[in-house]
């Protein structure tokens, strides 16, 4: 199949960047990233700069790939990361624009590569249970209702890719932050730090220049792991609750 690609090119963080157009031929059985591999092979042997893009697992789990295809983070297929998307989902003659995830909090390093260390700092602010190695009681000392464990697991499925931010008209990080807050709020292990965690993580999220949520729910539609906006509602409750009764100092 023949394709026309409009790809975002940016030589470094300070370059303004622009779209450039490429013609390429792809096999329907290729993954989207394999299509880009082949494009890059051609560019390299033609003496041109290959397109920089992030990827690692190519299995939809590491959260490294970060492309917006025709305006959709991770492209047209629901519940699918770009690395798992196959070219058979496109048609011969298609025109595809390829951009990086965009947000003030995700600066572009080069072409399609962005930095998401803002997410790491949100986790560092409180996305954990404070337990040192070796201090844990027996795992069966703490039975957890299966239903609650399942909800925690649904939230924990987040791969931290940032598609939710890229999809949000306000570039909010609510879905990401709420997934971690929910996971730990659902579990008994998370209780002692529950209020402190909600406050610290939300405050860090705000400090990172993410936008605010105005209930568009584009985040959930773009999430390759199906993380639900119900987590956002839960986070809001947790945050409000923590404000009403601040954690003891």
């Amino acid at each position, binding site marked *: 199949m023949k394709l026309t690609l409009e790809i975002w090119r940016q030589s470094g963080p300070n370059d303004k960047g622009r779209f450039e157009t490429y013609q390429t031929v792809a096999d329907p059985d290729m993954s989207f*990233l394999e299509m880009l591999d082949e494009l890059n092979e051609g560019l390299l042997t033609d003496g041109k700069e290959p397109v920089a893009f992030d990827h690692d*697992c*190519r299995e939809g789990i590491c959260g*490294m790939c970060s492309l917006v295809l025709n305006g959709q983070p991770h492209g047209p297929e629901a519940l699918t990361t770009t690395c798992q998307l196959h070219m058979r989902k496109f048609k011969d003659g298609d025109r595809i624009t390829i951009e990086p995830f965009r947000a003030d909090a995700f600066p572009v390093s080069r072409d399609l590569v962005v930095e998401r260390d803002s997410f790491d700092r949100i986790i560092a602010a409180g996305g954990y249970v404070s337990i040192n190695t070796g201090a844990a009681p027996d795992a069966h000392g703490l039975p957890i209702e299966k239903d609650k464990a399942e909800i925690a697991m649904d939230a924990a499925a987040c791969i931290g890719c940032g598609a939710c931010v890229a999809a949000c008209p306000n570039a909010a990080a609510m879905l990401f932050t709420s997934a971690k807050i929910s996971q730990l709020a659902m579990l008994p292990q998370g209780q002692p730090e529950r209020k402190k965690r909600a406050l610290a993580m939300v405050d860090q999220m705000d400090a990172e220049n993410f936008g605010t949520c105005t209930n568009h729910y584009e985040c959930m539609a773009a999430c390759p792991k199906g993380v639900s906006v119900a987590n956002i509602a839960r986070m809001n409750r947790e945050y409000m609750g923590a404000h009403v009764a601040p954690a003891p100092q």
Partner: protein
Amino acid sequence: MSQTLDSKVPSGDLADKWTKHKFDLKLVNPSNRRKFTVLVVGTGLAGGSAAASLAEMGYNVKSFCIQDSPRRAHSIAAQGGINSAKNYTNDGDSVYRLFYDTIKGGDYRSREGNVHRLAEVSTGIIDQCVAQGVPFAREYGGLLGNRSFGGAQVSRTFYARGQTGQQLLLGAYSAMMRQVHSGGIELFTRREMIDLVKVDGVARGIVVRNLLTGKLERHAGDAVLLCTGGYGNTFFLSTNAKASNVTAAWRAHKRGAFFANPCYTQIHPTCIPVSGDHQSKLTLMSESLRNDGRVWVPKEKGDKRKAADIPDSDRDYYLERKYPSFGNLVPRDVASRNAKQVCDSGQGVGSTGQAVFLDFADAIKRDGRSTIEARYGNLFQMYERITAEDPYKMPMRIFPAVHYTMGGLWVDYNLESTIPGLFVLGEANFSDHGANRLGASALMQGLADGYFVVPATIASHLAGRALDPVTTDHPAFGAVEEEARLSTERLLNVGGNRSAFDLHRELGLICWNHCGMGRNEKGLKEGLEKIRALRDVFWNELKVPGTGAELNQSLEHAGRVADFMEFSEVMVADALHREESCGGHFREEHQSEENEAKRNDEDFCYVAAWEFQGVNKPSTLHKEDLKFENVKLTTRSYK
């Protein structure tokens, strides 16, 4: 000159060794710990858990990884589960049984002392992870669920849907980030370790490349921990993440760390077959599928009928036929080798003939579609996404692929390499799996090394040796940095017209064809020649665009491929020297009449540790004899 290697496994009863050793180890006083800086390279399960635990103890930790976040390390992709001798299922498991199964599964090529310790600490791992909030699968009573995995005859595997690696890694990552927040860990992402710095023979630092700017950076410390994963990507096509590499280990090897058993590679039986020349990596289908799926090929060679049109009488369920007691659940090496044998004999299926069927029709008939969907729904979906075929309606096509590497840098019982102060953890070391790893044991080993072993044994170095203060101004850092700069320049200036990607693919094919599932003397010798020839081609025809002073993914890849080009030679040489079949290493000359692996305990019951002598020069072999005081060596039989 060959030297005898001291494993430092303590004497005494197997079950008391670790406790005794911990007691005998020196301790670092809590108030002194902050005076020591530990450099931890890698943030997978091994590196993440080590960095967090050491920082909690009060050490000053610097942590490095290639990806933009520590959470993205390759460990994230593990699906199936993690073993632990909890015996929550009351089915007769014990520390001793896990120990025994691991020794036997490794085909008697691992150290009893290490393996027993692994089984011992396995229970604490589950406690630790649960306390962190890792959402393991649970039963209705609220307690943890277990399953049997990879042919184990007890249910000792803990799991979190198909995302066990992800959930365990996020646990270690969050523990790390807590320490980042409190200042115990300084985090360096998008950094690639380029070389190791030794001062007076002791590992005292590293030189890393900042992948965003290209700048070389120096970091000094009192100990260096390599937690940089396995070398499966030597084969180009593997189930490993694309950035997985041998660079850090190989550079340490060139500085004096011996490389042990590089020929022990694991080929996983259930992967999605190659679909064409564009293939960039292979996808694993979890081993748990073999609990319900039946493996078969047509009895007739070249039978091109659709699976559904082939009646039972024309099918060969070869695993069930050959191994009636284990059937489809034989260990990985046995399953892979049998798949190769039937494909070599012309019974393979699919357009390439390089695949066998994994069929769920009987399981669906027996348990109903919804039960199968609940068990494997996400895997079936993944398969369909990649192949556009519906496994509920037609059997999956699977084929073995490179998956894991049991070999790695040689370490003693303290996980210290032959370079003092250089510790190696996780898949990067060779320590616990012998010639074949059991399913769900890599996650266990990575976390055992990082949470429990190294935090204790590192004191043998920090408290046991007098370490003068060293800063990055020491001339040793300047010299190593200059070498790193020159090697970058060399890569940029070859001036050919082939990409590292293309050359890597070619290397991978050589390794797969000559040092893959079946190996023989002639093929290995040819492989060696082809590798040497390709290495020349690499240094004449490579093209790396751009400069060294920017984010340059072609340069990153070229550096890693240059190391694979050197490393692959010692891997093949090791395979050639080991005149026996054991675990993942199958020498066709050494098989029984029934095509089963034939070990040679008389001559090869040792760890082969190779010492680097220079590129294009044969490495020197050192042997560590393996002593079995508790387990009797037998021929593995899964019949």
